[in-house]
């Protein structure tokens, strides 16, 4: 008993190595993430979607159906053994086209968030830290203007003015997405700047850069990451809405919204053309939402034991 105690003590007293610290933090984070089984489901769904999208030409039954392809002999077939989710009005496999449309959807989510989040976070940090100054007023009034316009409407307007394609729909969604991050980070930064740890860093002589990016930003990351994981689903939904009205990816490249819109003309007789792409949208959004909840649990700090 005594010896066992002594042994653990000597182990603890030494400074842990970098790899041991990494393993330890990974174990803790995984524990917090996996406490909720739904997060694991979300993770599995998201990983599955990503893997399917990347390997689309190899895992889909009819990769050719993703492009220009016509097969009137097999057009308008209900789900069967050969075409698991049926075929559309010109004979293309719905399953293949759904999996290929994940590519555009994920690309859009990644590009939109990769551009809008850094911009939004940066502006929010600056405006929040210099709360009450002219720069705060300028940034936040511009943000308010963007937030005042209904997001889908703004995206529709921008996408309609530009030539309809995937790149322009990404631009449109990016333009309407950053203000949400600015608003969120602004609130956090303007409260953290009065915290003693920020004041303390200033009194030590830390630079503005250090205070903004090393003291305040790390404390904002948990909500930012959570929101990002949730937003992937929403960006995909907005992207689907744009392609539903014909402002996204152009045919013959498949897009989920476009498939729902094309199929809706043949409802309810050829229900599979609409229902399966719509279900795919639901599954993706649900997956990212569950993953987002898991990430939030994982990054929760304070008494919940963020070490």
């Amino acid at each position, binding site marked *: 008993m005594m010896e066992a105690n002594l042994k653990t003590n000597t182990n*603890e*007293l*030494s*400074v*842990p190595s970098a790899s041991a*610290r990494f393993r330890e933090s990974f174990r803790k984070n995984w524990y917090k993430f996996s406490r909720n089984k739904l997060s694991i489901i979300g993770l599995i769904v998201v990983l599955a979607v990503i893997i399917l999208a990347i390997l689309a030409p190899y895992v889909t039954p009819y990769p050719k159906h993703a492009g220009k392809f016509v097969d009137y002999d097999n057009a308008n077939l209900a789900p069967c053994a050969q075409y698991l989710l049926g075929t559309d009005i010109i004979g293309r496999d719905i399953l293949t086209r759904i999996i290929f449309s994940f590519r555009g959807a994920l690309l859009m989510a990644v590009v939109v968030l990769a551009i809008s989040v850094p911009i939004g976070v940066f502006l929010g940090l600056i405006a929040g830290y210099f709360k009450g100054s002219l720069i705060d007023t300028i940034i936040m009034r511009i943000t308010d203007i963007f937030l005042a316009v209904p997001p889908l409407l703004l995206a529709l307007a921008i996408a309609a003015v530009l030539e309809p394609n995937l790149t322009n729909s990404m631009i449109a969604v990016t333009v309407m997405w950053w203000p949400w991050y600015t608003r969120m980070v602004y609130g956090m930064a303007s409260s953290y700047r009065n*915290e*003693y*740890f920020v*004041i*303390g*860093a*200033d*009194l*030590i*002589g*830390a*630079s503005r850069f*250090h205070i903004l990016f*090393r*003291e305040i930003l*790390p*404390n904002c*990351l948990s909500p930012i990451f959570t929101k990002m994981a949730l937003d992937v689903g929403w960006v995909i939904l907005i992207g689907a809405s744009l392609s539903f009205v014909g402002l996204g990816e152009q045919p013959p490249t498949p897009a989920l919204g476009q498939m729902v819109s094309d199929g809706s003309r043949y409802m309810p007789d050829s229900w599979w053309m609409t229902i399966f792409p719509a279900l795919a949208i639901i599954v993706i959004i649900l997956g990212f939402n569950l993953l987002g909840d898991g990430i939030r649990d994982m990054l929760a*700090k*304070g008494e919940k*034991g*963020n*070490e």
Partner: protein
Amino acid sequence: MSEAILDIKGLKTYFPVKKKGETLFVKAVDGVDLTIKKGEVMGLVGESGSGKSTIAYTVMGMYQPTAGEIIFQGQNIATASSKRPLSLKKDLQIVFQDPGSSLNGQQNIRQILELPLRVHKIVSKSEMEKKIVELLKTVELPAYYMYKTPWAVGGGERQMVSIARALASNPKFIILDEPTSALDVSIQAKIINMLMKLQHEQELTYLFITHDLSLMRNIATRVAIMYLGKVCEIADTGEFFKNPLHPYTQMLLSSIPVISEEEERLKPAKVVSTGEIPSPVNVPPGCSFHLRCPQRMDICSKMDPVMQEAAPGHYVRCHACQKA
């Protein structure tokens, strides 16, 4: 020993408050003169709202003073912290009351202690780890704490880390803003002992802010009492407890709870404490203490008394004491 390190002259810090269209001022610090000599432990005592922390924060540059001078090592530093040179921030440090909020929970202790070392170029990058271990050793924490976050250690240990951070830049003057009042009694003693040891070893000067008079008796070289943004009485610790002159000091001393007859005899005769500290927005005319004073005279409500030397090194600001 006798050279002044910090000389506060006529310091005023007012905060504007808007009330029904007119602007009033919270007179948090209202004309304070205080001289702190090198190597001393100055105890600054007062009730909540008396302005003792505001003095500390103004000296640190967190607030822009409304009037007055703060002379630190012969240099007037009465400006906001953003306008102060780095060398000044190196020499002047503060330990806040609550170690929970004064340390960033998203950093580990190594990162926290690295900041002052890096900003003030105390050690080179290669010696950083060695210096951090050394700092942790100074505050009696083991080296493996380096990679823990403040959340993962106890309240007392967290305060030790704040103290280590304040010491990291080798300052000459440290303000301790109620460093133990958020902690367990058992840990308080340990921290106080450590602070006193460090003060002795590194020849530091402390401005120790507290509301605990009995603590001051044990550690301070001089004690100043504050009431409503003004200093009432300053004296060497021995003189202060033996011969308190200001009625407010007497009131405070007589309200320290004691457990034995022996201790009871050391205290001044019981002065009943009445009323509460008035709002610093509406400071009463004349002596700010006259509403609660048991020795109140006519002059007290008309004229504000000035600081006078009652005995060598013993200053008091009271009409009643000056007559005597």
